[in-house]
């Protein structure tokens, strides 16, 4: 079943859907107000042509944006009631209006809500009031447009659900590190979670965790040939298959839809302004959250320290400038630590892995040496 079918199937049971991009929207808030949020990211499994997107975006836009435009604009079904987007990179910030152009003439054209998340470091600028103002305005706009009401109690319940989901994902990540489940299966589950009702996603995670928990060891057997993978998208399945064939264990990840998304949930509160101030301020570092730049190396070092990974693979998304600017410095620092690094670049049509298999093989040999 593809993403369209999945959302369409869900549509029968749910009244309001909200399509979000990029990756770190206020999901708990939307959920608490009766929306089912979907995160439109990592659409590689569903979108493999760019017929519509190519009429709106040049080919030097990243595959994330091209797939997103293709996905949203090529369906005639009314699967989304409202879109929500916040500021990320230079490409994504243009998308709300481009998508608006794509949807011209559509009868039930979804509204597009936009929000600016402060990107200044807290030690430089006090951003709390500004962010609180944006969250409050968003709540008012949703209430006014959809006749819904914010409830602190429901918000607490939604936080609890999302916390549970994130902790379960961490548990599955450990299972990958211990070779109990494959990384490809884990990726499939996290990716499906982006398009699923949170309750269904938790159910699936719980079922796997329950089934395999007995195999999980408290003491970690640090494998000698182990890597951490990093990128804004999960790597193509062919790349992971190759790593697994070379007996290279993925002991951790710095992937945007995975660790960067599930690493942190703030404490319980009925105050959404307070919650999101914490949520964004203490978020796991990601190049799209500009103020986290200074913490990124420390977070990666910490991952390496905890997993004792010998190698680090940057899965660069072609044309992702944010990642490109950080990789040379990170590579230099990791090498200084004695960590082997590999930088691969994946473009829109690179799923077969033909372009990088030789380099991957050489890297695997290096790790095992």
């Amino acid at each position, binding site marked *: 079943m593809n993403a369209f079918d999945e959302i369409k199937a869900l549509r029968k049971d749910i009244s309001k859907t909200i399509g979000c991009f990029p990756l770190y929207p206020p999901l708990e808030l939307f959920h608490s107000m009766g929306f089912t949020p979907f995160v439109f990211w990592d659409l590689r499994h569903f979108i493999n042509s760019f017929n519509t997107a190519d009429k*709106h975006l040049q080919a*030097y836009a990243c595959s994330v944006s091209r797939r997103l435009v293709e996905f949203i604009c090529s369906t005639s079904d009314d699967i989304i009631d409202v879109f929500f987007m916040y500021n990320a*990179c230079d490409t994504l*910030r243009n998308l709300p209006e481009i998508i608006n152009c794509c949807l011209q003439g559509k009868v039930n054209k979804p509204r597009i809500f*936009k929000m600016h998340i402060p990107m200044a470091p807290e030690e430089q*600028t006090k951003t709390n009031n500004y962010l609180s*103002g944006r969250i409050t305005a968003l709540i008012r706009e949703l209430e006014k447009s959809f006749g819904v009401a914010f409830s602190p109690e429901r918000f607490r319940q939604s936080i609890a659900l999302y916390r549970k989901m994130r902790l379960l994902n961490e548990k599955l990540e450990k299972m990958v590190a211990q070779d109990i489940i494959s990384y490809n299966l884990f990726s499939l589950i996290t990716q499906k979670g982006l398009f699923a009702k949170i309750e269904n996603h938790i159910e699936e995670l719980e079922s796997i965790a329950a089934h395999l928990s007995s195999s999980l060891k408290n003491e970690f057997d640090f494998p000698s040939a182990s890597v951490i993978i990093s990128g804004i998208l999960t790597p193509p399945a062919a790349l992971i298959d190759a790593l697994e064939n070379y007996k290279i264990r993925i002991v951790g990840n710095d992937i945007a839809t995975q660790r960067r998304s599930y690493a942190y949930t703030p404490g319980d509160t009925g105050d959404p302004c307070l919650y999101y101030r914490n949520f964004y301020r203490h978020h796991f570092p990601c190049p799209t959250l500009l103020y986290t730049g200074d913490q990124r190396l420390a977070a990666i070092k910490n991952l390496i320290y905890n997993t004792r990974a010998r190698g680090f693979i940057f899965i660069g998304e072609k044309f992702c400038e944010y990642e*490109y600017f*950080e990789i040379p410095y990170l590579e230099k620092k990791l090498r200084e630590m004695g960590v082997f690094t590999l930088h691969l670049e994946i473009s829109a049509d690179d799923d077969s892995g033909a372009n990088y298999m030789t380099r991957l093989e050489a890297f695997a040999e290096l790790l095992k040496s």
Partner: protein
Amino acid sequence: MADLPNNNTQHHRRRKSTAGKRLSEIMQNDYVRLHQKAENGAFVVWIAIVVPAELFSGFENVVYAVPESHAAMSAGKGVGPLQCEKAENNGYSPDLCSYARIDLGTSFDGGKDSPTFGLPKPHLLISDNNNCSLLVKWFDVYHREWGIPHFILDVPFCYETQKEEDLHYILSQYQDIIKTIESMSGQKFDYYRFIEAVQNSHEALSHWKRFLSAAAHKPSGITVFDSFVQMAPFLTSRGTKELAEHYRLLADETLENVSRGIFPVPNEKYRLLWDNIAPWHQLNKMSAHLAELNTNIVAASYTYCMGSIEGEIDLYNYDGIDPLRYLARTQNFSVCPHGLELRFQSMKKSIASMEIDGVIFASNRSCKVYSLMQMDLLKRTTDNLGVPAVMIDIDHADARKYTEENVFLRVEALLELIDAKRNALARAHRNEG
């Protein structure tokens, strides 16, 4: 069919104008002064182009450098690819903005091959994320490599007219910039010096608008290439009396030429609008080639945005009361922080006031923020306004990514579209008659 090249245009014979000579002097002086003051202990700030440099005039001994402007100059002087390669050899992707690659290449190589001997090392970096947010990442490289503090001016993107809460947020950050410099440099901010700088900038911009108004004449009193190069001192001399005086003389000289019947493309047959940053490495060649086709790019979204606010092309007036508020209100003056609707709005005004025949959308691989809405803008220009338009591929500073043949094939196709439209209109008139 577009006209065959006309080898008798006056374009090639045009000598450097007084304003052109003065521009060279100003730019040379700006860089010499920058290096000298830095050497003598001034506090050096590197800024992104839309960071309001008038703030630094409030300090007695703070100087600023603009890496983007230096990169454009390097590209214009022909060293763009050389500096880009240096950055690429240090692991920076050739897909990154060529300004950034030129700047990184220059800095990593200690200013070697730079037309200005590079830039003096900064004490503080100030980037912003509204013009293009990759600037934050670019400045972060120096922040990490050199351990220099980096101030991120966080400006909400402008999909519609600036909101009051966004303006206040920007204002609060200006105060933070002032406090940061005070604490780092030990210098006190002088509000009166700052007020004077804002007045100078506003005066300069009012003359800039007068200069651009020469394009409304038929034939146009300027080409876009004149306005591209004359932008430079606004970036390096912002807030100074010299800038205001230079733009006053530039406007006077240009309008005087118009009144005397001196035009850069006297046989102007096609009046075009340019959308994107200038291809700095091609200015001379491109302007000469266009003049041969009796074609003049008379305006550009890149230059008419200076001094205006989002969606407008006219001067945004400073009330003389609150200079910080004026700067915050014009923080989005550059075209890149504007959403598609606003950009189309100002483009429509320019097309009408300058009687534009066709639009060149320069799809610029190095500037996604400028380029990635152009396909829809092009469609609107042709469908809604009935103005012919084409898209060409350029890179603003990396000459390796530019092919003259492909560009001019498209430009000539545009001229044919304009001719076809004119012929159709003439036929319609005849039929009506």
